[in-house]
Structure formats: C-alpha cells, structure tokens
C-alpha cells in the first residue's frame, strides 16, 4: 500500500471540505462555533500529517498553532463574545440551506475544474490537496456572503484562512516565518473584528449587518 500516505492526506483534506459544508448547514451560532473548532482540529491533523509525510518538522509548529489558536482559543473567545452579547439563543436566518449547499457544490466544482488542469505538471499529491484547499477557501467566502450575522461572518473568515493554510502546507517549502506571521495577523484581525463587533452592537443594538444598510439609508 504505497498510496496510503497520499490517501490519508487526501482524506484529511476532503474531511476539511466536509466540515466546511457542515458549517454551511448550521443555523445556530453555538453549533456553528463548535463546527469551527472541529474545522481547525481537522486542519491541525491534516498539517501534522503533511509534516510527517514531507519530513518537514517546522510544519508541526503550524499544526500546533492551528490546534492552539484556532481550535481552542478563538472558538472559546467567540463563544464568550456571543454569550456576552446575549445572542447565544438566536437562530440565524440563512438564505436557505439547500440553496447555499448547492452553491457550495458549485464552488467545489469550480475549484476542481480550475486547479486540476493548471497544476497538471506538478506533484500529484499537491494537486488534489490544493484543489480541495481552494474549495475550502471559496466555501468560507460563500459563508461570509450568505450570512447576515457578524459572528458567523467571522466564522466564515476563519474557515477561509484555514483553507489558505491547507494550500500552503500542501505546496512544499513555505517558510515558517510566513506561516507564523499569517497566524498572528489572523489573531490580530480577530481582535480588531471583536472590538468592532462590540462597537457595532453598542451603536445599533444588533450584530445583524442589515442594520448598517439601514443606517446608510439604503433601505
């Protein structure tokens, strides 16, 4: 079974796509944040497996960052924010789960169609990994577009970033400095977004972004 390491790598990348779909399916904030933690956990596993098959020890650090920050710190912090803002019981109005999921399938189709021909010359392991990573990224983007609640937009943003990390680890030879700085910039972005959330909440009594449209006089 010489294919097994590659198969496991694909399997982990595929489960990341699956968890992305699971995030699209959730319509409660708490379960969405739980899914976000699972997403980061799968990412950490995937990166650790890449570290193992590429014999690249610095990737273990990336995996540890994914596990520590994204699977533990950020979901807990987000949950606390949700709780403090008193929106932990709210069910979010999503455009329609079925439609969103179909759009997600379309995203996967697009990323496979685009990525596989472009990378046809390169390493067969990296190819499908990058295609799957691009679909994780696009689904994260889709989630930011289709959700109205600012907290779930953050969750979409985080899952998008997980897709970037997956792509980066699939392609061999990304320097550790870049990875660490990306991880920290995400953390900074998270803090800034958090502060903004509380400001929006103070000003409008809601974190629904339709309030911003009304404020600008668009509706």
């Amino acid at each position, binding site marked *: 079974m010489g294919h097994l390491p590659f198969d496991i790598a694909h399997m982990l990348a595929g489960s990341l796509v699956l968890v992305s*779909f699971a995030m699209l399916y959730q319509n409660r904030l708490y379960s969405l944040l739980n899914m976000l933690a699972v997403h980061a956990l799968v990412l950490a596993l995937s990166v650790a497996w890449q570290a193992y098959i590429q014999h690249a020890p610095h990737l273990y650090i990336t995996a540890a960052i994914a596990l520590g920050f994204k699977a533990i710190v950020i979901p807990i912090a987000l949950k606390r924010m949700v709780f403090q803002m008193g929106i932990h019981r709210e069910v979010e109005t999503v455009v329609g789960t079925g439609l969103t999921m179909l759009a997600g399938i379309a995203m996967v189709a697009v990323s496979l169609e685009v990525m596989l021909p472009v990378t046809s010359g390169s390493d067969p392991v990296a190819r499908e990994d990058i295609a799957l990573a691009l679909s994780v990224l696009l689904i994260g983007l889709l989630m930011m577009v289709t959700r109205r609640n600012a907290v779930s937009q953050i969750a979409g943003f985080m899952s998008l970033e997980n897709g970037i990390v997956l792509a980066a680890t699939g392609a061999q030879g990304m320097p550790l400095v870049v990875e660490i700085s990306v991880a920290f910039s995400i953390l900074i972005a998270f803090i800034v977004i958090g502060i903004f959330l509380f400001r929006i909440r103070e000003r409008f009594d809601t974190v629904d972004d339709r309030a911003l449209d009304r404020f600008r006089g668009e509706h």
Partner: protein
Amino acid sequence: MTFEALIWQGIQMMLALALAPLLTGLVRKAKARLLRRRGAPLLQPYRDLRRLLGKDVVLADNASWLFRVAPYVIFALTWVAAALVPTFSTGLMFSWSGDLIAIIALLGSVRFLQALAALDIGTSFGGIGSSREMMFASLAEPAMNMLVFTLALVARSTQLSTIANVMFGAGLRVSLALALFGFIIVAIAENARIPVDNPATHLELTMVHEAMVLEYSGRHLAMIEFAAMIKLLLYVSLIGCIFFPFGMAQDEQALLLPRILACGIGLACYAAKLAFAGLALALFETSIAKMRVFRVPDFIGVALMLGLLGTLLLFVSRSL
C-alpha cells in the same frame, strides 16, 4: 455443489429474519441503559412479535382488500431486499441478483404500498403520515441513487457482491467517505430513527411512520413491525458490506472445510458489525434531539449533496 450453495444462500436469508428483532432489541436496550433505565430484555422484540401474531385483527369497516394484503407484501418485499444484501459472504448463489438499484426499487415499492394502505382507511393520521413519508422519500430516494452512482463509479458495477470485493482493495478515498456519510443520513431517514422521526412516539405532531401504521393490529401489525426491523438490519448490512467488508468470506472455495471456516469468520465479523452499529445508533439517538418536520428536507438534502459531491469528485479526478 449446487446443494451446498443453496444451503449458504438459505442461511443468508434466514439470518436476516432471525437477527432483525435482536438488532432492534439491542438498540432499545442500549438506549434504555444510556438513559439509566433498565430497559426491556434483548429478546423482547421476539416476544412482542409472537404476542401480536396470536392476537385478533381489528379491521375498520371500510378497509379494502389492499389494507389486508399490504402487510404481507410489505414483509415479503423487505425480506427479499434484505436477503439480497451480502452479509457474511460474497459470491453466493443469488448474488447476481443482489443489485443496489433492485434493492432501492424493492424498498420503493414497500413505501408505495405502505402509503396506499395508510390512505385506504381514510383517517386523517394515515393521510398526514403518508404525505410526510412521501415528502421525505422524494428527497431520500434521489440521494440514495446519487450515492449508488458514486459507488458504481468506483466499483464499475452496481452489484453488491462485486462492490464488496472491490472495496477490499479500494483504500481510503474521499468520495467513499462522502458516500458513507450520505448513506448513514439516508439510513437514519429511511428507518424513521430519531432526528427525523421517533420510532417510539405516538404524539400527533411528530409521528411519521407510526401515523401510517396506526390502524393496524394483530398479525398485520406484527408483519409491519417485523418488516421495519428487517429494514433496519438491511441498512446496517448494506453499510457494513459496502464500506466495511472486513472478514467477509470471498468467492467460493472448492473445498467444503475452508469454506465453512471462512463463512464462520464472516458470521462472527457480521455479528460484531451489527453490535457496533446498534450501539452507535443508540448513542447517536440519545445525544440528539428530534428535528422539526420542515427541517428534515434540509437534513436529507445533505445526503443528496454528498452524493453529488462524491460523483463530481470522481468525474474530475480518478484518484479521489
């Protein structure tokens, strides 16, 4: 040789009949233990069936022949479908007919008959039950078909015996993982298990399957309950034989003794798979709440999406 093959096939058919109530009993017992109740003994479903068989049938005045015939046909079709799924061995005598699409068709006819019989009496519960069942089925059946296409693209066949043989060497594949999740969702929906329907409820607002069989009693009810138990076993064996074909006896050996040994191992593995599935189902059902009826199409829709996604991945890249 043919006589021996017939015996193995007979064992396979009887196995479905003999183990189905035990599996249901196991799920009920495990659920009760998880809720810290003592629960009915494992053999209780057998006793229930015997008791129901001994009771008189109470028929509504306006019941037609359809209402009386339906339970037996439902039972027979479900049994045939369950007997077609390879459990402990591939390459049995009737394996050529064990086709996934045939099984879907058999189960589809079961559902059709059940809905007709529920409408026959003309009570409002029968109507609500069959309309809901049809609503779920209209999503679950395409989902099942998409999942079958995914498998067929990998195995290049829809025949279960061949699929199981291919899966021995298929390795880990993303599309198969997607198909597994899809299959589990469809199995939960089709067997009226908890997030979709509650098999133990008689509350008007939530029941689906129970609403359809509300008018049945006596031996008719026994047939329908037995058919439901066999259906649960069928889905568990289906998932076991497609995704976890470990330990199944492969094609016929020439000698009798190795064949018996291989089938013995196959039977033991099958029993282990059933036990695991029963416990996992009980754990899942106790940890989740039933969803609203109008949320169910989303849930089953996920299975359809997974089937689509799996097919898509296989069309684009042969190695996924």
